């Protein structure tokens, strides 16, 4: 394999990871504010369908993405309403919505199966595209990739560099403290859960309009759960989450290449890699294994190592707050 091929493969990895990155950013925002949106898998499916159908019928990609975002936001709003207002278990509601989104997409999408439809055109960014190596990998893609990359930076900046981001995080970490300091915790949680859900919806449209164009039953099945795991792996940071999504894409690409290089190894061995990786990675980031490891590390290394390995969820993730 020569370097052009390697660059081409890396470019594909970036493209295929783009929807995952968008979904991970959305879920990170939601969880940072204290709301787990476990419905992601169903929400991705239904929004992928909605995005494709809307774009197909109207001919407008923008409307496709908006329709998908609306579906994602609706799912998130149901989770938020159920937990924040009705004080029900977020995990249970999310799980049911994940199932329901799957069956709804299968039912409603029946007549749109495999139809040729619109897709996001590729557009190379002038100047940037000519940067050696990085240009072909990151800047000869389509708008979805640029949106995903930009979203990572904006989300990171918003979460960690703005006052509103601080309030968002405080709603997820110490809602009582935030409330006592005048933060409207519940309102914020609604806002960011719905915003996060809308991003998940756009990720769905990113699949059906850019990465896996068109619609078929079960189009993105499983990706929502993987995105949820990547949020954990990413330590609830959009940057680390994006790296996680890219690494995940890389392992899948590697699995495809390995299958061709090692025909004697059973096919399923390569398909198992992402799932084995999921277990290993979650083992690594869980406090139980990481903490003793960190304790033994030299003090100078502890901080960089921790930011690499450790991932504590927002302290009040999934917990209700009584504001009355």
């Amino acid at each position: 394999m020569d370097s052009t091929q390697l660059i081409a493969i890396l470019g594909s990895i970036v493209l295929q990871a783009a929807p995952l990155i968008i979904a991970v950013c959305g879920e990170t925002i939601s969880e940072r504010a204290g709301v787990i949106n476990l419905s992601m898998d169903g929400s991705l499916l239904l929004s992928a369908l909605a995005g494709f159908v809307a774009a197909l019928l109207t001919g407008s990609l923008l409307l496709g993405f908006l329709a998908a975002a609306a579906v994602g936001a609706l799912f998130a709003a149901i989770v938020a309403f159920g937990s924040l207002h009705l004080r029900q278990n977020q995990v249970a509601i999310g799980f049911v919505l994940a199932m329901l989104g799957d069956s709804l997409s299968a039912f409603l999408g029946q007549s749109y199966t495999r139809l040729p439809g619109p897709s996001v055109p590729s557009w190379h960014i002038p100047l940037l595209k000519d940067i050696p190596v990085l240009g072909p990998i990151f800047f000869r893609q389509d708008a979805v990739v640029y949106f995903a990359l930009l979203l990572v930076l904006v989300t990171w900046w918003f979460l960690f560099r703005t006052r509103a981001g601080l309030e968002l995080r405080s709603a997820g970490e110490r809602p009582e403290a935030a409330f006592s300091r005048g933060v409207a915790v519940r309102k914020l949680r609604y806002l960011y859960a719905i915003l996060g859900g809308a991003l998940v919806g756009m990720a769905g449209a990113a699949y059906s309009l850019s990465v896996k164009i068109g619609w078929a039953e079960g189009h993105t099945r499983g990706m929502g759960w993987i995105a949820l795991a990547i949020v954990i792996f990413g330590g609830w940071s959009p940057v680390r989450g994006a790296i996680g999504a890219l690494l995940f894409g890389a392992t899948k690409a590697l699995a495809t290449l390995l299958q061709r290089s090692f025909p004697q190894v059973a096919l399923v061995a390569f398909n198992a890699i992402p799932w084995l990786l999921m277990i290993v990675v979650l083992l690594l980031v869980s406090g139980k294994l990481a903490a003793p490891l960190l304790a033994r590390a030299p003090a100078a290394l502890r901080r960089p190592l921790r930011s690499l390995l450790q991932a504590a969820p927002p302290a009040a993730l999934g917990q209700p707050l009584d504001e009355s």
Partner: protein
Amino acid sequence: MHKKGILFVALVALLLAACGSGGASGEGFTFGMILVGPQNDHGWSQAHYEGGQYVVEHLPGAEMIVFDLLNPADKPEATLEGVVDEMVAQGATLIFTTSDEFEEDTTTVAAKYPDVTFVNISGDDALTGEGPANLSNVMGRMEEMKAIAGCAAALTTQTGQLGYVGPLINHETLRLTASAYLGARHCYETYRGEDPDDLEFTVSWIGFWFNIPGVTSDPTEVTSSFLDTGVDVVLSGIDTTEAINVAGQRAAADHAVWAVPYDYLGACENAPSICLGVPFFNWGPDYLAVATAVAEGRWSQSWLWNGPNWDDLSDLSSTSVGWLNGPGLSAEAAANLADYISKLASGEVAVWAGPINLQDGSAYIAAGAVGSDEQIWYLPQLVEGMQGPSQ
């Protein structure tokens, strides 16, 4: 509940009686069709579905009951037997089970309903005698069409690398994939004057007839991976259209790539400009023949492996399999391809002409010999020169 059941059975009996008296016309004739994928997948399942519709159009009064997406991943509550029960209850006297996946179950269920005629597509139980007397097999002789597909790819490639997105490994897929390779090899040598050993032909199996997320490899990613690593023509052997979709997307971004879809006449629609053509199944005429025979009460067991109408590969009233040139095929390539087709038609050239070695180097078809139906149908491995797993 039980009383209701008896009532139901009585109703069925009535329907059956009515159909018996219907005779030749097909009036009151109901047949069932069971599909493994969605009926509009632009691939394997849609080709069958349209074959069924062809019967409905040409056999006046015939009615079709369809059940699609019968696979345990999508519907744990449905079994072939349960669906057949229901179809028989609705009056079906002929049932097409259109996947290799249904082979064993069809044989079992056929024994349960000896008065209903079963046709399993791509199976061989009627050939081997494992199936009961009311079961027959139909398959299209796709091998030459795949060879034509391979030829079109070899005539077009600029990098000398072809990629084949395969479903799962069995006799059927091995022989079809190998046929594509043999056609490509022949044309690469004959029409382009290249050394056929320089032609790289790589097979990547996804693990099932179509993508099941998390279970199979994703054909979108497999195709991307091919195109990233120098392959410029992708051939599809799976039920669905991912390969041509991805290639179309690449072409829109100014890459010189092409695709050859499979199964369904209309499969080029997804990206016409880079579609070199499609080897397709045309089940209609064969299904009509079977349905008419059943409706007229003169059906008898058979194992059909029907070939194309060599005079016109796109004559939908007569050919069982066919080839349709795609808009992406250059005029020069089209001319060469027409030549290849005419030689295949005349028998001057045979796809499975020896010497052919298997992938592990063992001799399979001797020099000067042509592979027998049996040898082709039960091909045990890919053939020498192909890259990719054989099991």
